[in-house]
């Protein structure tokens, strides 16, 4: 199973304050453990939301909104993609993660949809038309 593990932003990360050497070292060590265990598929850190943009969809209108964005605790400051056996395993791994920011913070784990998750809910016909759509639009599951 794959999981998106999202490191949430804090005031410090949003202010663009770079983590201390100690924190970088600890995080590096943790990343090495993840790689050695064969579970880390990807991982990146993100610039503060002041460098980001959002698009709002309203009917046919598309509005571009410049960062920074307000709800700091809901913003994402970095992410991993892990492949582990279960949510329990993802949780156990995350417990071993050093605190992500000098001022604490929160990390959220969300399972990615896998083919099997669609199960019987998606009939062959539905799936076929979905595949046609995806082929036309180039959207990838």
């Amino acid at each position: 199973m794959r999981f998106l593990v999202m490191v949430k932003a804090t005031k410090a990360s949003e202010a663009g304050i770079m983590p201390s050497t100690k924190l970088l070292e600890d995080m590096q060590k943790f990343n090495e453990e993840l790689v050695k265990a064969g579970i880390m598929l990807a991982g990146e850190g993100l610039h503060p939301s002041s460098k980001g943009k959002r698009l709002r969809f309203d009917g046919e209108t598309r509005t571009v909104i410049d960062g920074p964005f307000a709800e700091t605790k809901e913003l994402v400051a970095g992410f991993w993609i892990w492949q582990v056996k279960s949510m329990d395993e993802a949780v156990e791994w995350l417990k071993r993660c050093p605190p992500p920011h000098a001022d604490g913070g929160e990390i959220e784990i969300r399972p990615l949809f896998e083919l099997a998750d669609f199960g019987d809910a998606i009939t062959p016909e539905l799936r076929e038309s979905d595949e046609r759509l995806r082929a036309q639009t180039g959207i990838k599951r």
Partner: protein
Amino acid sequence: MTATDTQRAIETVWRMESAKVIAGLTRIVRDVGMAEDLAHDALVSALEQWPTSGIPRNPAAWLMAAAKHRAIDHFRRHKMLERKHQELGHELETQQESVPDFDAALDDHVGDDMLSLIFTACHPVLSTEARVALTLRLLGGLTTEEIARAFLVSEPTIAQRIVRAKRTLADANVPFEVPRGAELAGRLSSVLEVIYLIFNEGYSATAGDDWMRPGLCEDALRLGRILAELAPAEPEVHGLVALMEIQASRAAARTSATGEPILLLDQDRARWDQLLIRRGLSALQRAEQLGVARGPYVLQAAIAACHARARTASETDWAAIVAIYEELARLMPSPVVELNRAVAVSMASGPAAALDLVDAIRSEPVLKSYHLLPSVRGDLLVKLGRFDEARPEFERAASLTRNARERELLLERARDAQRRVVPGP
């Protein structure tokens, strides 16, 4: 936290740590079976103590320490110390202690111990199926029940297989070590074979109703990725990882809505997993940067990479694929490799050149009941407009395949060839 939560957390920690604990213990007691028993005792202690004491801050260290105490108890109880001293020889004698220095032994060698455990579980003294079962159990952290379910074999059969494998290792006095020098290449190829076999059983199941069992693919990939970090200087390890990552990237594209297999060139490439492709390509690069002659896994990964890099089937670099098959054929000559090379040649230079290659291997005994030989030959004959010769090839291929859907397809091709035969004068 409820009792069930705690129990689940313990089981999860166990799954994550058991390989390391067993590996560390094996180094000390020199017997995989005994090490597993001792490690299991530590798990039982955790199940007894953690629900009341709470889960320790560092559960892995706790398990390791508990297992270590069990090992010391064991040594004392059985008064085996002196005998073990003699068996272990120099290493322990030099420590000048009444009991071995477990702390040092457990902490210093995690990487080496894991690697030794992999080599032990995949030792050539064991049958292939025993190696697979033992590897999944000891390194993959799977239970006997899970292995049985994955391979559609009964649980007692797998349990028996594991018990016998451990006994065989003990009887043969297989040393717990990472093989060096001349022995290494052969032993490593046995390890890679086991991992690829697990992957393939998941990728194209040989038995049962499911065309794929993704759980096994994930287990194999994880083992491969772990091995790549333990033995980073071995190009074939990275080659195998690259091959598995790229093959896994096609998982979502290789079955139709109704469950039929879709061949590589007909797959919707928008459904290929780009993250896995990128990982595969970088593993291949890691292998090639080591700068030695390319081995079988690196070459197969290089072929898979040619397909992965092509955005559409028509953009495939067939000339490059033919060249790699030639390298592979020189390295490990086999009729199956030749047949694959012929298919690539037909794409690169046309059906006539390919037919010559196929005809050269037609009488190979290995291919006698291999349905792909007549199927490929029939396909080439159709491309050459020789429909009357193509029909019996498809019929023969249909009689050899064990897959009902494939048989239907081949018979249809035979009928189609028949229809296109131009009546003689």
